[in-house]
């Protein structure tokens, strides 16, 4: 070999020497993966074939599990860290640095050869063993196109994960002068982003009253992370793109650091003086914020000036502790832990600015609402307790569903509503009273492509006309009712289709011709939903729920998908349809079947307490005569604010004045009788073995609460 310029001959020889030094790594990787794929596969096949469920489906399931993204990526993560650190470990040893750096080899040449060696010594054995495992499973087990696709996608994803972790570890190795710090640095570099997002979200959700905690900013940013493992787990296109960018950026930065790092800094924690300062402050700030967040969670929603003062003191103390410990770690000397103490004040300042800035809303977050002119469309979400699914059949949050399907363009109405809501929310925060309104999430889709989200509490006394414009709009219903965007639901899930009506703990189901009935029902329901608006929901409680469900045998996990239709008393066409198709369940109460009736009070005046984000009156927080808070179920046990009626006269009057419902509704008028009182009708046991109590939930018709009930139950 002559000059160490980059030529194929030189590279091959160099790689040969490198491989000789690191031969144990590819051998170990190959052996471990072979044990997993071949050993694990044969074990799984053996157990399946010797049991009663020995069939192709089980064998295929076993193959899918074997080639799925579980153990191999975990092993690759560890191997990536080991490969990166072992390749550059010579930089931490003076003897080795003298040995290698004195040789007539360009430093860049050496670095890149080590870099690529660290990749192929693991990836090639991984690929070979995976293919061997696949061939083996094809022979002894069951593989098909699904298994092949799973194998290939896991291979690609895991390889990308390996590249990303390897690149980040290499960056850490170049930054540090000691292997222990390099390992710690790798852990910090991989996890810092997720930790920062988590604590920022946690702190903001406690200190910002309008913080919604969702990110809908375009399809690129939602769910992404700078943690390669998180991106691997989320596994959307954007996550994989971010991982590729992580590989490129971390590799480039690592090489840059190598070029400028000084060989004589062997043994120091961080090789660069300014780097040490940045690392110390950054880690100390993260530590302090984590501790502050912990204390915030400990006080729950009891955010008062006194608690914030206490937390500020905690932040100051922890700034000192974190800075001192970091200095000791980075100096490898406990005695020098108080050196560079001025950095501590920087940590303190940052931590206090974050906490107090959010608490005092110095950055204007709580007060901010996008201007009407900058908004493209809106969505508004009030928890309706429906089930939603995306196009792939995966469960979706209601906010996600609304973001995809609700496009309200009545900007003036939405803006007016939002302003009323934010004023109410901030007033509650200031007064530190409990939530006094409808908690909603407002989603703003801006013209620049970004999205903003706010949790706002619409006041109970909001203008009804305004609310009807919003809640009664077709756009609102599009984002609330899944049937309006069913995307060929019946064709997608053609197996085990059922139409089920659920009411008063009973179900009625139609299976035959369910899809056709479903299509018919949608049209009927649409006619009734023309009256759906805020006023209707304040007056009507939900009777029952009609559900159309289906499955798809081709799905890996065979579970039921549903579309739900709440049924209200005013939906005459819907009720008629249910009766015509033998789905209707009688909603009348037979008083002579009733053993007793329990009536309880659910409403109380808001008390001086922290501002919090409750979920309306149904959660039943009650303040008893001593001024203590109690939850409704505790109320029931203690018997305060409730009364049991078992006199037939009383039962008759109460039954006549009430009706059965499954849900009081999301836009419940808190001052209505429906809201103020809850009724449980006890019809004894629903089964012969007396295991299940038959309790029916009811509400009073408006203005029909019997006087004797009012007199019996005190506030």
């Amino acid at each position: 070999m002559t000059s160490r310029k980059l030529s194929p001959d030189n590279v091959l020889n160099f790689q040969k020497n490198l491989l000789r030094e690191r031969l144990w790594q590819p051998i170990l990787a190959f052996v471990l993966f072979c044990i997993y794929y071949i050993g694990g596969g044969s074990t799984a096949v053996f157990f399946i074939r010797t049991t009663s469920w020995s069939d192709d489906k089980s064998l295929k399931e076993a193959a899918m599990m074997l080639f799925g993204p579980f153990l191999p990526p975990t092993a690759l993560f560890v191997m990536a860290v080991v490969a990166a650190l072992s390749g550059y470990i010579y930089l931490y040893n003076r003897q080795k640095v003298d040995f290698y750096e004195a040789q007539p080899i360009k430093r860049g040449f050496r670095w890149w050869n080590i870099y690529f060696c660290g990749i192929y010594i693991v990836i090639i054995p991984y690929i070979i063993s995976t293919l061997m495992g696949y061939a083996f499973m094809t022979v002894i087990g069951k593989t098909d196109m699904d298994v092949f696709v799973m194998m290939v996608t896991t291979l690609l994803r895991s390889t990308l994960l390996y590249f990303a972790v390897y690149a980040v570890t290499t960056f850490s190795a170049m930054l540090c002068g000691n292997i222990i710090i390099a390992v710690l640095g790798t852990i910090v570099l991989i996890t810092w982003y997720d930790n920062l997002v988590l604590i920022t979200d946690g702190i903001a959700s406690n200190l910002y009253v309008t913080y919604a905690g969702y990110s809908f900013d375009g399809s690129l940013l939602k769910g992404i992370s700078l943690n390669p493992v998180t991106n691997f787990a989320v596994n959307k296109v954007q996550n994989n793109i971010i991982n590729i960018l992580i590989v490129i950026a971390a590799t480039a930065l690592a090489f840059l650091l190598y070029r400028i790092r000084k060989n004589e800094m062997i043994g120091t924690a961080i090789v660069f003086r300014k780097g040490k300062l940045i690392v110390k402050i950054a880690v100390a700030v993260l530590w302090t914020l984590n501790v502050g967040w912990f204390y915030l969670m400990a006080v729950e929603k009891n955010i008062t000036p006194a608690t914030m003062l206490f937390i500020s003191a905690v932040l100051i103390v922890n700034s000192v502790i974190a800075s001192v410990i970091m200095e000791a770690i980075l100096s490898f000397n406990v005695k020098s832990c108080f050196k560079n103490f001025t950095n501590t004040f920087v940590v303190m300042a940052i931590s206090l600015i974050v906490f107090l800035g959010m608490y005092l809303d110095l950055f204007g977050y709580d007060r901010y609402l996008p201007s009407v002119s900058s908004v493209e469309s809106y969505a508004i979400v009030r928890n309706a307790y429906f089930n939603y699914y995306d196009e792939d059949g995966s469960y979706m949050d209601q906010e996600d569903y609304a973001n995809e399907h609700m496009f309200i363009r009545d900007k003036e109405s939405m803006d007016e509503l939002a302003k009323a809501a934010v004023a109410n929310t901030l007033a509650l925060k200031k007064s530190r009273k409990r939530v006094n309104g409808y908690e909603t999430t407002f989603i703003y889709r801006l013209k620049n492509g970004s999205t903003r989200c706010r949790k706002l509490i619409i006041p109970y006394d909001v203008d009804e006309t305004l609310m009807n414009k919003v809640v009664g709009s077709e756009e609102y219903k599009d984002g609330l009712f899944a049937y309006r965007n069913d995307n060929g639901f019946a064709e997608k899930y053609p197996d085990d289709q059922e139409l089920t009506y659920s009411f008063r703990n009973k179900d009625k189901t139609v299976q035959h011709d369910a899809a056709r009935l479903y299509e018919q029902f949608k049209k009927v329901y649409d006619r009734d939903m023309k009256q759906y608006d805020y006023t209707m929901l304040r007056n009507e409680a939900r009777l029952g729920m009609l559900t159309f469900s289906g499955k798809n045998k081709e799905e890996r996990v065979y579970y039921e998908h549903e579309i739900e239709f709440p049924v209200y008393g005013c939906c005459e066409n819907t009720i008629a349809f249910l009766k015509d198709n033998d789905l209707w369940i009688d909603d009348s109460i037979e008083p002579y079947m009733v053993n007793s009736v329990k009536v309880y009070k659910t409403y109380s005046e808001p008390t001086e307490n922290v501002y919090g984000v409750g979920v309306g009156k149904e959660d039943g927080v009650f303040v008893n005569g001593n001024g203590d808070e109690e939850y409704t179920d505790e109320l029931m046990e203690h018997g305060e604010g409730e009364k049991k009626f078992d006199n037939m006269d009383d039962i008759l009057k109460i039954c006549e004045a009430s009706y059965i419902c499954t849900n009081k509704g999301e836009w419940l008028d808190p001052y209505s009788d429906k809201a103020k009182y809850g009724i449980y009708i006890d019809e004894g046991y629903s089964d012969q073995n007396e295991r299940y109590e038959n309790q029916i939930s009811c509400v009073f018709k408006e203005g029909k609460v019997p006087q004797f009930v009012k007199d019996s139950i005190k506030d």
Partner: protein
Amino acid sequence: MIEVKDLHKTFDTGGKEDIVHAINGISLNIDESQVFGLIGTNGSGKSTLMRIAAGIYRPDRGNVYIDGNPAYDNIEAKKKIFFIADEPFFHSNSTPKHMRNYYADIYENFDVKRFDKLLDDFNLSLNRRISTFSKGMKKQLSVILGVCAGTKYLMMDETFDGLDPVMRQAVKSLFANDMEERGLTPIIASHNLRELEDICENIGLLHRGGVLLSQNLENIKFGIQKIQCVFANEEDEERILGGINVMLNEKRGKLHTITVRGNREEVMAHFAGFEMTFFEMLPLTLEEAFISETEVVGYDIKKIIAG
């Protein structure tokens, strides 16, 4: 030639007060085909200078040029240098054969056959694990590897320290042979002046990051003479010594040990003109020459070159 031009190097060990000026403006030249000795105590900057010359450390200011090429990250410069560290490194579980093959891949002029022969001459086994070698044997192996690499310059950082006298002699013979045959230039760093006295031709003395002295050894010795004498008449002492450049004069009873500047003939001629009870010219050791040179400047050189 190796040229060191206004070289500066600092080490950052931590806080503001922890900047160490390892090399503080050194300039010197190392001629070819001559053995150069680099002397200095611990912390004087010898190892740092060696490592900068070997391209391991990057200088802060100034540079080291190997036949006109800057040393750091420069293949053309590094091809001409073989560096042996004070604690040489070998691959784990390797044998001399492995290391031979490894270096043969790196240094294009590596002489494999000569390596095998020298190994045999030095009674080292080709296939025995180096981890079982003693410290001295490892150093011998390093020197053999270095000599067989065929480079123009061979830098050894405190390699001679710890070699037994027989081995030192053998190594000196090797150097002499290669210097004559192919113009090898050995550069040896040590804190032991006595060990280098009979091998080095040029000496550089470092102290606290600077060069105190860089001269040819013979030139140093040529200009200084050491005399032991007893004056016939003590009253003549002042008159006798007044006519020459006395550097040091130690008296024990009537016996004077005098170090004077001047060549041998001049000094002999001067003392011939006086009646002496006893007169002898003694060989001057390198240490004595250094002491003489540096005490004049004000350094307590004994502390520097303690061996």
